[in-house]
């Protein structure tokens, strides 16, 4: 039924680029905005974090080891979500973002306590979310110090307890916040750019009457849509490459992931963003309206996605809302892949969620596009 002419699609793309080139307000937005955001968001300070997802590897299984675990969970900062038997299992949990912190209580811990010998517990912190990580390691230090006073009451010195916590930060040993911001920015800028430009694209043509003109020519709906989408996908790709390059070279953010995983995650997410932009463009009567709608949609994405503020610091009432924010999933994907090299096996739930969003949102945008032009 749909007969596509690539010649017409190429013409539409050529025309779109010519128009973009001449739009003085668009060019700086396209190339300067990403770098500006990179600089701004690269240095956001951490905030209060509660209920950090914690895995506990209890090799000792004693009254004393229980006391340690309770010490952590009763503090309110940590919430036990798993009890893996081995360190390998623990590693999987951290890779899959199921746990952000792991506490390892070694065998013979209680013996050491009974014998009044100095002893150690291991604390592993996932540094790929640097704010949570730095806060978590700080809290862990406090909890361990107070445990020391509890388990070794005879010691008088408050500072020198008998328990030594060895905090090991995985993946982002220096806890530089820029290391976690750059990957997330890839997703955020992709979202901004595709939604902003797409939301303007069609409403602009309708305002000027050129949309009306194009549809009385042999240009088909599918050709028109592809001609609109392709230029903005190309631009978004350039922007992301720019952020990636500046991030890894200038900000020296180490890239431990694979381009395949990150690329397919971003592509899937781009579909959702384009779909949202398309819908806004079709539902708006003027460009101004489209702009307002975009700003309105942008705020929850920033707040509820874990992009700027850790999800853990969110009030419990708002937390379920974060599941409705597509950015939430892609932020986990790019961060985990970028820093830990997590692959599809660990990130499939995020990929599944994004696939659902892409199908629903983009599909709705398409059907709206058909309907709008038929009336």
């Amino acid at each position, binding site marked *: 039924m749909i007969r596509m*002419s690539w010649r017409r699609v190429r013409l539409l793309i*050529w025309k779109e680029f010519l128009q973009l080139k001449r739009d003085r307000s668009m060019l700086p937005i396209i190339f300067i905005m990403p770098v500006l955001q990179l600089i701004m968001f690269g240095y956001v300070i951490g905030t209060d974090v509660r209920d950090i997802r914690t895995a506990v590897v209890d090799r000792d299984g004693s009254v004393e080891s229980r006391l340690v675990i309770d010490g952590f969970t009763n503090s309110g900062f940590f919430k036990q979500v798993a009890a893996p038997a081995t360190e390998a299992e623990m590693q999987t949990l951290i890779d899959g973002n199921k746990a952000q912190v792991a506490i390892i209580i070694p065998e013979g811990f209680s013996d050491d306590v009974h014998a009044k010998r100095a002893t150690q517990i291991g604390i592993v912190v996932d540094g790929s979310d640097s704010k949570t990580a730095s806060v978590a390691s700080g809290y862990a230090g406090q909890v361990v110090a107070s445990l020391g006073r509890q388990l070794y009451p005879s010691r008088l010195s408050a500072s020198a307890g008998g328990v030594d916590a060895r905090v090991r930060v995985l993946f982002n040993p220096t806890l530089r916040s820029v290391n976690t911001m750059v990957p997330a920015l890839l997703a955020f800028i992709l979202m901004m750019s595709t939604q902003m430009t797409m939301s303007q694209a069609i409403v602009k043509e309708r305002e000027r009457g050129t949309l009306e003109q194009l549809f009385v020519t*042999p240009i088909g709906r599918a050709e028109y849509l592809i001609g609109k989408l392709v230029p903005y996908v190309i631009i978004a790709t350039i922007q992301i490459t720019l952020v990636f390059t500046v991030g890894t070279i200038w900000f020296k953010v180490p890239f431990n992931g694979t381009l395949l995983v990150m690329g397919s995650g971003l592509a899937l997410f781009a579909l959702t963003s384009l779909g949202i932009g398309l819908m806004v463009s079709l539902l708006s009567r003027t460009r101004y309206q489209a702009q307002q709608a975009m700003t309105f949609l942008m705020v929850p994405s920033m707040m509820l996605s874990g992009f700027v503020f850790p999800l853990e610091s969110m009030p419990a009432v708002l937390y379920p809302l974060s599941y409705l924010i597509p950015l939430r999933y892609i932020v986990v994907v790019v961060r985990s892949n970028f820093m830990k090299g997590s692959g599809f096996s660990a990130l499939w739930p995020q990929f599944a969620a994004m696939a659902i969003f892409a199908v629903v949102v983009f599909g709705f945008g398409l059907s709206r596009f058909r309907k709008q032009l038929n009336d």
Partner: protein
Amino acid sequence: MPAADAANAIEVHGLRKTFGDFVAVNSIDFNVGHGEIFGFLGPNGSGKTTTIRMLCGVIAPTDGGARVMGYDVCAESERVRENIGYMSQKFSLFQDLTVDENLKFYAGVYGLSDEKFAERREYILTMADLHGRETEMTGDLSVGWKQRLALGCATIHEPRLIFLDEPTSGVDPMARRQFWELLHDLAASGVTLFVTTHYMDEATHCNRLAFIYRGDIIAEGTPNEVKGALMRDTILQVEVDDGEGALAALEGSPGIGEAYMQGALLHVNIGERTAAEADLPGLLGPLGFDVRSVEPVEPTLEDAFVHLVTSQKGAST
């Protein structure tokens, strides 16, 4: 090729479009012959644009159908769109593309070969008097130039049928005249023109007219046939000191069909009576109006349409 065999350029039967409960076009019928200049007239919101959009295959009719250049507007909308030109009131050119880029774009859209494009480009630049301005931004051109370039882009593929949706609104009288000369040239070469306008003087350029009101065609025929609806009525042109006031006084007076302002003058339809019988000075004088002159005039198309709309309103209430 069925197009060449079609008896008429446009054949409309029972064409209907509703949006929810609103009937935009109410089962209309008409034909437009090859080479005609067909005027499609009506007030804003009467269904003109909806009809054009259906005829161009942009929106689907709710009921009924139409054949344009021999192609069915529903089943063969792509063929329809290949064989027509369309130009709207908004000069829907890309304002931020140059003259040449606009031409190149539309030539590509209609699949013109390079040689054909070179030939048509030359023709359009001459027709629109745009030689030397090929690299100027379209948005910077004057309205008259834009309009001629829009016509050029809409006809770059040499369609045998062109839809013109209020092509001259917002254009100065001089440019309008030049534009109509171009349209007459096209018609002389056998191209069919389907024009909507609300300038009544432009309607007289048409071979045939249809007047649409609230989704119904309420009159159709040559300009003279349409004026013939008023054959037995007398129209008086009245010069009075306070036109607005006199208008209010006349409305509702017995024996007065319609009264309305025509520029500074008043047009009054007194039905099948003579000026002496109606005695407007005798009617308005006692009310304090200074009637300077009263003379019967030949009914214009505008008189005819006011009459048609008024009688339509009377019929529906």
